[in-house]
């Protein structure tokens, strides 16, 4: 079960998500064929809120 999702930035570019699922941390690329990416989109559609601290570097 996904419990937390955060946007990851590098050089001010949004490059991936950090996802905590079943107590394990994953970095998930922005690839629509990736099943974790698909799960994040479903989690967002179901009301999950993505942490977004911006780039700010």
């Amino acid at each position: 079960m996904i419990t937390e999702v955060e946007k990851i930035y590098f050089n001010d570019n949004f490059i991936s998500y950090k996802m905590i699922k079943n107590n394990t941390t994953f970095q998930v690329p922005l690839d629509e064929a990736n099943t974790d990416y698909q799960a994040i989109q479903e989690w967002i559609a179901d009301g999950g809120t993505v942490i977004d601290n911006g780039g700010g570097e």
Partner: protein
Amino acid sequence: MAITKLIADSLGAGATPNQSAFKNIIINGDMSIAQRGTSATGVTTSDGYYACDRWYSQTDIGTWTISQSTDVPTGQGFVNSFKLDCTSAGTSNADEVMIRSRHEGQNLQYLKYGTASAESLTLSFWIKSNKTGNYYVALGNFNTTQNRVVSFGYSIDSANTWEKKTITIPGDTSQGFDNSNVENFTLFWLFSAAGAFTDGGVSNTWINYAANRFANSDLAGLGGSTADEVYLTGVQLEAGTTASDFEFLPHDVNLQRCQRYYQILGGTALSFYQEQYISGSSIYITGNARHIVNMRSSPSVSLTGSWVAVNMTGSSPTFTINDNNFTTYWQGGSAGRALYHLDGSSTLNFNGEL
């Protein structure tokens, strides 16, 4: 005749490629590859990939140990099987217990589904369980235009005895497989299922997708007792109407086929070692490595264990990842020597599964 000529002749005109090498659509059908480890205990509703590569478990009732077993049918050449063992009972057929095998449609175009020439398929497998009775297999085509499903029954006749089952599936002339790298085709072995999967009854022919046509309501049902267990191995799905001998692949070939979907980096001291002398804290130390084989998609990455970091900022690097390589970016600390690497047996786990 030169060997290359023989190979060319056998794979060339007049031969259907899947009738020779790689005739088996199933990857790791002999259950010999288990990159994630050979056993997972206490598995409940966290459906996913445990033990044997490419085999997805759904255990929505009870608690299970899922493992790569050495219990195999005698004299068939198999070394391993995939085992689901109920360790805490629930109510069988109150919810689902099943194993899935998922496949990319781009590997299945030769089956000519969606045309008048659609190939029949033959599924064969070895199975063993403590519980006799009726069981079901379903195949799903998750086409973006119209999902399709076909389901069949089989019986386990003798308790705790390996039995070989063979099922021939007619080709589907109505709907092709999408030519893509996502989950287009899935096989389901049902061991327990609620009415949502059974109240329409088994289909025996391809129909537009309906979840309640996966099985009949007389499904034997596992998970109602801690005695319940099931073993599966020797799974082969091939074009045609007869089951041929299981296609054993060399270990390295089988492993590389699995690594398209999941692969591990590290596991030994000083793995993925990166070091620089940096001039200040704004410097990032980058590392890059190619995946062992190209992966199905850009994979997710997780860490088992920990990093060793000297003069670095934060606790872990940032990754950019695609299907053939990855790069790490980690900001250094103060001017001077800075380094990072995986600690001891720690690993980076790349997941591109379906």
